[in-house]
């Protein structure tokens, strides 16, 4: 206790140096934990791009392929699900709800999803967050469109603006559905998922803009105006994929098997979490790179502290001689310096954690909208071992100046020869 108060008073005397050292450590801890939080949140956010959905069903391909085209809008579906199959799935007794997804059109680089209003009720992401509207409301008219936050931001669209969809997903010669313009009925809040870059319209709307098309070309002489299309039969013939919610998660495997063995066409049902995990595995090497970087950051911080401690040691030789003269042992001198660096490390850790919490609180909304990261103040469980590691390294680093001081106080005797 006597040593502790001596250390505190001594540190208080050297405020500038102490502040600098604590700041160096705080920055390392900030980066170390920050990278860790981003890493964990990136993984978790990714793994919960779709949450609350029990099964993802599409035409038979690979689980990752299905996930990529239906959720991430990367690549194209090779096959569709017939409307009949979709109805059969809906009719299964275990199924609580379905959200159809019909892909294949685009608007200025953003993909259009034909779906039902169930999409806005059942598509969940992150820790069970539902989609929310920044302005407007879900589509109700046939030619209503709901746009994601990224679409609104990049194209400066707002509720009431009109837009024209293009047939196909890209390329220079997109045929346009200019005869059937859409009106923006709502803008969704940022989610950090591919939904942000999506334009959602009703399944019927997808059907309506294609009534006079066949095999990717507009049929001459068959043109139907936007008004005429309203009175035609707009039941889809096929959809690309569907999200399925079950009454009980326990039946997930049974329903999955039933769908995979569906006799009338080859279908594939996957558990979204499992498929997302597989996909993350493919891109996860970036994770290790992050870890290496934060490890190096920590080493730099610790050597900063070591430099500061060793630098101060010269000035403090007389202090050590005085302590020796009043009967402090060489071990006490050693303990004093180790205690000092431990205190500096603890101070730096607290400051770093506080800094990180403040930064994440301030950057919360920004991170969601730009990076899709939901970083909140709660320390991830992986942070405790990291903090312990920092503390151990800090105390260990203090052993070096402690040892130097110990050797010196043996060699100097009570005479400090500078």
């Amino acid at each position, binding site marked *: 206790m006597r040593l502790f108060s001596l250390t505190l008073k001594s540190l208080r005397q050297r405020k500038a140096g102490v502040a600098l050292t604590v700041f160096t450590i705080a920055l390392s801890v900030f980066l170390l934990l920050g990278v860790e939080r981003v890493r964990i949140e990136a993984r978790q956010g990714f793994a919960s791009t779709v949450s609350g959905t029990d099964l993802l069903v599409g035409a038979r391909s690979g689980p990752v392929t299905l996930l990529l085209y239906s959720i991430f809008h990367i690549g194209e579906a090779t096959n569709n699900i017939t409307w009949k199959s979709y109805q059969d799935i809906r009719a299964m007794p275990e199924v609580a709800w379905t959200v159809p997804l019909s892909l294949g059109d685009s608007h200025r680089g953003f993909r259009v999803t034909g779906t039902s209003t169930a999409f806005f009720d059942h598509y969940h992401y992150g820790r069970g967050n539902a989609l929310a509207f920044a302005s407007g409301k879900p589509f109700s008219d046939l030619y209503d469109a709901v746009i994601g936050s990224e679409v609104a931001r990049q194209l400066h669209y707002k509720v009431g603006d009109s837009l024209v969809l293009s047939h196909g997903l890209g390329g220079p010669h997109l045929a346009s559905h200019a005869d059937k313009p859409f009106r923006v009925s709502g803008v969704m809040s940022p989610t950090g998922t591919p939904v942000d870059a999506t334009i959602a319209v009703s399944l019927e709307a997808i059907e309506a803009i294609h009534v006079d098309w066949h095999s990717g070309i507009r049929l001459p002489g068959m043109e139907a105006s936007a008004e005429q299309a309203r009175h035609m039969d707009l039941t889809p013939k096929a959809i690309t994929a569907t999200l399925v919610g079950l009454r009980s998660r326990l039946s997930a495997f049974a329903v999955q098997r039933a769908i995979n063995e569906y006799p009338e066409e080859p279908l594939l049902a996957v558990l979204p979490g499992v498929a997302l995990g597989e996909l993350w595995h493919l891109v996860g090497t970036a994770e290790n790179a992050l870890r290496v970087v934060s490890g190096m950051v920590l080493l730099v911080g610790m050597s900063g502290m070591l430099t500061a401690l060793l630098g101060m040691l010269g000035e403090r030789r007389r202090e050590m001689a005085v302590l020796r003269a*009043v009967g*402090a042992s060489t071990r006490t001198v050693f303990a004093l310096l180790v205690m000092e660096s431990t205190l500096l490390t603890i101070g730096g850790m607290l400051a770093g954690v506080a800094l990180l919490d403040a930064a994440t609180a301030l950057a919360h909304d920004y991170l969601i909208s730009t990076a899709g990261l939901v970083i909140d103040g709660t320390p991830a469980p992986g942070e405790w071992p990291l903090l312990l590691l920092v503390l151990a390294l800090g105390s260990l680093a203090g052993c070096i100046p402690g040892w130097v001081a110990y050797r010196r106080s043996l060699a100097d005797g009570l005479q400090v020869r500078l």
Partner: protein
Amino acid sequence: MIGPASSPLVSTRSLRHTWPGSSAALVLGDLELAPGERLFLGGPSGSGKSTVLGLLSGVLAPTDGDVRILGMSFASMAARARDRFRANHLGYIFQQFNLLPFLTPVENVLLGCAWSAERSRRAGATRSLMTSEATRLLGALGLGQRTWSHARTGELSVGQQQRVAAARALIGGPELLLADEPTSALDAASRDAFLTLLLDECARHGTGVVFVSHDLALARHFDRGVTLDGDPRDSRES
């Protein structure tokens, strides 16, 4: 743990010390000090005076020979025991830079008892009694309350700092005071005044003194004198 009352305060036998990397050896003729006795140790700079104090305090271990304080041989003690012995029975004053700048003057004085339960007890045992003993000592050494209670340690003049250092060395009444040129940074007038107060206070507690200085004029304040000559091979009694 202290030998019989008859044992001398200090006795050294065939002491020799060689610094690592140096060929010259410091050789000290056998010394014996009775309890309360005051010895002046003179000699030019570099003659080994500070080294002798290091040996007498048990911080330095001699190459040959042995130091006994109050009948206890340093050679027979482990390092920790020597440190504890020093805390309990010895006071030390440096030439300068005696104080920890981050402690107040009174806290610096109390540091003299910090590693010794025995000296804490003799200085009053409780925190408040020890503090009043510390302030009494400061007063007796010529440092008024107005000075030590208002100035930060770093703001004290060298002479004032030396008084604080002397109070720290003497609190709790150690048997032996080792002083390494404590007056060399002072002017002639304050040097004699300081020395008189210091020796009076030592007399009060029966504290023996080994006082080191290159200034032979100070030798008259002491019972006995020893001079180390420039060539640190021999010493002779004057």
